[in-house]
């Protein structure tokens, strides 16, 4: 069981890495905004699996905190993107 969980954890990490490569290459800032969201899902799954492998229930707290802060980072990205729109064309950013 531990070996299987470790293997699936490694697999999801590889998926995370591939996704990050694609996102960070994305030609626009809007693409890179997704990075925090990617970590918010794949990273949390990895953390939960790590917690099960190490048999440490406290890791679930880390996963929850990771989720909260990855969301916070995503919102910061979106605000920055929107404020840049405000600078270049006020009135087009509309409602957020």
């Amino acid at each position: 069981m531990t070996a299987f969980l470790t293997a699936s954890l490694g697999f999801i990490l590889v998926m995370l890495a591939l996704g990050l490569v694609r996102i960070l290459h994305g030609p626009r800032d809007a693409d890179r905004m997704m990075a925090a969201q990617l970590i918010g899902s794949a990273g949390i799954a990895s953390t939960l699996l790590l917690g099960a492998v190490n048999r440490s229930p406290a890791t679930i707290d880390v996963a929850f905190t990771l989720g909260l802060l990855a969301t916070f980072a995503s919102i910061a990205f979106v605000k920055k993107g929107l404020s840049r729109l405000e600078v270049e064309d006020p009135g087009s950013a509309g409602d957020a």
Partner: protein
Amino acid sequence: MRLALDVLTIVAVSGGAFFFLAGTVGMLRFPDTLTRLHALTKADNLGVGLVVVGLLPQAAGPREAAELLCTWLLVLLSGSVVSQLVARTVFATDRLGDALARGPGPPR
């Protein structure tokens, strides 16, 4: 009983890993920012949900199981709203890009 729970874990976590694979393939192959965002949000959220279902039988007790479910609910909530926000930003950026590309036209 233990065997059945272990089988559930293996099946669910494998399903979750499969959805992560699908989401990543989508992100690598889709042509557009919005389609990539769609692949990321839908597939990866489902992957997290299946991984959580798979880890429930391995949880140390009912409290840890409840915490796992709460984590998944948080991912669901934040993922859905954040993807909407990112999509609107992309829309607004595209509209601005089109307007700039069209150049100054007759005053609106």
